[in-house]
């Protein structure tokens, strides 16, 4: 492996605390990304300080609401708007909220196949 990559599982309630902790230590927000799994969406928050790479991993059930981290890392708003639009995540309190007009895709939430719980519209 070229570099060690730590992955720390966090819960919905402890997320903001952990992120604030990283912010306090001077970490840089590298990226946020989502992976749709069968029963949940896995969200990875990646941070970096002096080339040491750390991930916070959060698992979000369909329809669940999560807090935005853009009050701590302002730049997170671009990632969070993207997550909401492409994956249909329900994110509260984004600092710069595009209300679903960030990418303006042809179909809403293209990455999430219409499931039983949340399906604003089915793709095709």
């Amino acid at each position, binding site marked *: 492996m070229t*570099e060690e990559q730590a992955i720390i599982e966090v819960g919905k309630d402890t997320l903001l605390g952990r992120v604030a902790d990283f912010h306090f230590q001077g970490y*840089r927000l590298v990226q946020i*990304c989502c*992976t*749709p799994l069968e029963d949940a969406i896995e969200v*990875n928050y990646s941070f970096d300080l002096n080339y040491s790479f750390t991930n916070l991993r959060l698992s979000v059930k369909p329809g669940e609401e999560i807090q935005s981290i853009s009050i701590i*890392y*302002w730049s997170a708003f671009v990632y969070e708007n993207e997550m909401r639009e492409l994956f249909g995540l329900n994110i509260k309190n984004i600092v710069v909220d595009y209300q679903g007009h*960030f*990418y303006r895709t042809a179909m809403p939430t293209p990455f999430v196949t219409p499931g039983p719980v949340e399906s604003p519209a089915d793709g095709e």
Partner: protein
Amino acid sequence: MAQRNIIPFGPQHPVLPEPIHLDLVTEDETVVEAIPSIGFVHRGLEKLVEKKDYQEFVYVAERICGICSFMHGMTYCQAVEEIMGLDVPPRALYLRTVWAELSRIHSHLMWLGLAADAFGFESLFMNCWRHREGVLDIIEATTGGRVIFGSCKIGGVRRDIDDGTMKGIVKKLETMASEIRRSTDVFLNDYSVQHRLKGVGVIDGEEAHRLGTVGPVLRASGIAMDARKIGYAAYRDLKFEPVIEKDGDCYSRCRVRVREVFQSIELIAQAAQKIPPGETEIRVTGAPEGEYFSRVEQPRGEVIYYVKADGTKNLKRFRVRTPTFANLPAMVKMLKGAGLADVPNIILTIDPCISCVER
């Protein structure tokens, strides 16, 4: 208080080679807020992994962006190689380094030209693009393509550069360096260039770091963060220091890129000296299983590839976070308080690559 106006900027605008739309909220001549809106280039290629298998997907990865195409392909290959635990032959790693640095030179020269065009220095623009053609000739001679190289594959590289050609490349770059220096000296010393760029779009190091800025934009604010230092490909064997500048304005960002052109030429010379003989690729069988975040320093900054595979031919998830995406928040901050006439310069000095951003 002056009256507030909203000026739409883009998606089609004379200084923008690519479509991005900004709503500039202005008071008189000063921008008080800038709201970017994207989506004009969004294709949704991350979802193509479901249709193409992991070996085929190298072609798609290379076409995420036509400017740093080789590095996109390389980052993708690295990510898959890490998951599969492949030992790529060292010669292939060196060749990747050489091509990556060549594409950095051509990208920076292209940017210098576009920047000159943005502040109305037409002859400088033409000169930079003339130098760039020299680099493209080398690329074409060694890979066969000008823009999309297609030379990187999982497990190594498709083509080899023999020693004679390698020496020729180093020699040609040396002679080009003195020519390039004549043009870049204009950027560094000319009064009119400094007049347009100095003190414009300032962002200090601490704020840039907090905003997650990467690449030349971050380094121009005095923070030495260069993903090449992680030591992927052959960079662990090469000697170099990240180029940094202190002021954090448009001029510093320009200086960083100028100095990086010469740094890349030096890195290619080093790589040509140290390149070991041997194989250039290994056989790849099976399918990947696992996940990895691969990081590479592109001309515009650090790119992140996240690959998750579950042991089938098609990847489970593929995600790219490109440098311009990380630099967008910083651009919004820089535009606050800038004069309307400086907006094109500020947008161009983050070296926006919109097709990367939206994928």
